[in-house]
């Protein structure tokens, strides 16, 4: 049982929830850039929530099914087609042997998630299939490679899956300007009141320098009273302020420790929404706290457990 890669697209990788428990020896987590979309894809199929999927960045991927299975598609709308029929994200589809599944260009969002019933049947390295190319870990053969033309993606034995779709209220609109909460922390108090005010009242743009390690934003420069700090652990979603004052949000493939001052952190769900924004998108920040971020995550986890309606 497999999918054959006819065209690998710009960047298509195997991801699960990440390589946890090895950051103390410098191994980053990897994992889905948008946890919300990833988790819903597995949930729609009643897969284990950590089951490996494909993260499709930007599109131009084309797959040929060599067996029958069910898939769930979530996250960005990358102009997906099943044979010649356009298909929308946030729901499940039946796949028959010989079907072609293709993705063209971003219509809304940047990263789509493709889960198959039972998950991709790929090996784990250090407990995870998450692809981190820089560290040569994860993916189809465990060496961190992205998908290439001609690859065969092994699939688990599918289970019977009822047609399901994500509740309408849980589908984000990635085209909206992003307004996202920042939890103050790390070196927050080393940024003067005026710098914080500028940070929270400005509109930033997603720059062209975005990848799985970090999202560099451009806009009002922020300056604190520290040039560098003693290197410390960097959380997913932490916001570094380097000397040029342009914020960098650290994403899933970030280095484990670093020495730039940080003004705070996004929540994982907030960082996931940022990960769906392309260069030029508008981002602004509001002040939140750990309590609110925790509450929002617990609500998300609860809705996820409830699953699809009907």
């Amino acid at each position, binding site marked *: 049982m497999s999918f054959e890669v006819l065209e690998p697209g710009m960047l298509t990788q195997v991801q699960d929830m990440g390589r*946890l*428990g*090895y*950051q*103390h*020896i*410098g*191994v980053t*987590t990897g994992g889905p850039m948008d946890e919300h979309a990833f988790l819903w894809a597995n949930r729609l199929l009643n897969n284990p929530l950590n089951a490996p999927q494909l993260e499709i960045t930007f599109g131009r991927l084309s797959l040929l099914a060599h067996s029958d299975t069910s898939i769930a598609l979530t996250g960005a709308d990358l102009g997906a087609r099943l044979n010649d029929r356009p298909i929308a994200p946030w729901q499940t589809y039946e796949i028959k042997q010989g079907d072609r599944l293709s993705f063209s260009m971003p219509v809304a969002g940047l990263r789509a998630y493709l889960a198959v019933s039972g998950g991709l049947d790929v090996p784990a*390295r*250090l407990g995870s299939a998450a692809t981190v190319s*820089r*560290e*040569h*870990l994860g993916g189809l053969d465990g060496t961190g490679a992205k998908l290439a033309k001609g690859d065969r993606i092994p699939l688990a034995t599918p289970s019977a899956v009822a047609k399901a779709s994500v509740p309408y209220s849980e589908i984000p609109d990635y085209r909206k300007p992003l307004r996202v909460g920042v*939890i103050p*922390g*790390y070196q927050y108090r080393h940024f003067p009141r005026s710098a914080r005010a500028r940070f929270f009242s400005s509109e930033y743009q997603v720059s062209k320098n975005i990848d799985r390690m970090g999202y560099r934003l451009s806009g009002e420069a922020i300056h604190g009273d520290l040039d560098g700090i*003693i*290197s*410390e*652990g*960097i*959380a*997913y*979603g*932490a916001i570094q302020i380097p000397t040029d004052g342009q914020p960098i949000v650290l994403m899933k493939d970030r*280095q*484990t*420790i*670093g020495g730039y001052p940080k003004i705070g*952190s*996004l*929540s*994982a769900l907030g960082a996931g929404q940022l990960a769906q924004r392309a260069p030029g998108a508008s981002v602004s920040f509001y002040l939140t*706290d*750990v*309590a609110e*971020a*925790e509450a*929002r*995550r*617990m609500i998300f*986890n609860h809705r996820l457990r409830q699953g699809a309606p009907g």
Partner: protein
Amino acid sequence: MRIEGVNENTCIVYFGDSICDETAGLVKQATDNIRATLSDVITDLVPSYTSVMICYDLERIDRFGIHTRLRQALESGAAKAQDDAAAQTLELPVYYGPEVALDLKDVCEFSGLSADEVIRIHSEQTYRVYAIGFSPGFAFLGSTDQRIAMPRKSTPRLKVPVGSVGIAGSQTAIYPSATPGGWQIVGRTPSKMVDWDSESLALAQIGDRIKFRSIDREEFIRLGGQFDEL
């Protein structure tokens, strides 16, 4: 000791504000302590020079619970005798020959010392692993003797060969994999710093002591050392 929240599933504990042996000892002790007593709720631990970042499973514990458990673990740990016995001293063979010591000449120029003197100073000291990061298994060792504490190169190399031993100011380190890097390269170890198929995964752990043993070309080759890159 200061415990601070970072996001919905992460907090960080600070043990001091400067890089020193005492703080590094506290970090090591706390890391061992947290690992031993909180393994049911933590998903990742990131110790560094003066802090330990803790990631936890929000389905198992919330922000109040983690603070309480951390306080309990760290206060009981503080009562324990300062015990560095668990930290091992690793002896690493290093070949300081001209084929692999890409920047030794520059370090000699910087320090006004001969190559033999630089090698002797670099290898006669015992270093402490203060932090691990940058890339898997990359251990930041301190502290380099002032006389050879040359700053990073102004333009980093695009690819530093595996096993390269470098100096950057008061720090020294081994490149466990071929990555870009700006450290002044003075030698190369034939030892594998990371091996995902071995039980230990990474040779050096935070808190360990490391001593370099100067070896000749023959021994370097016999231990599996490679010249082939760059």
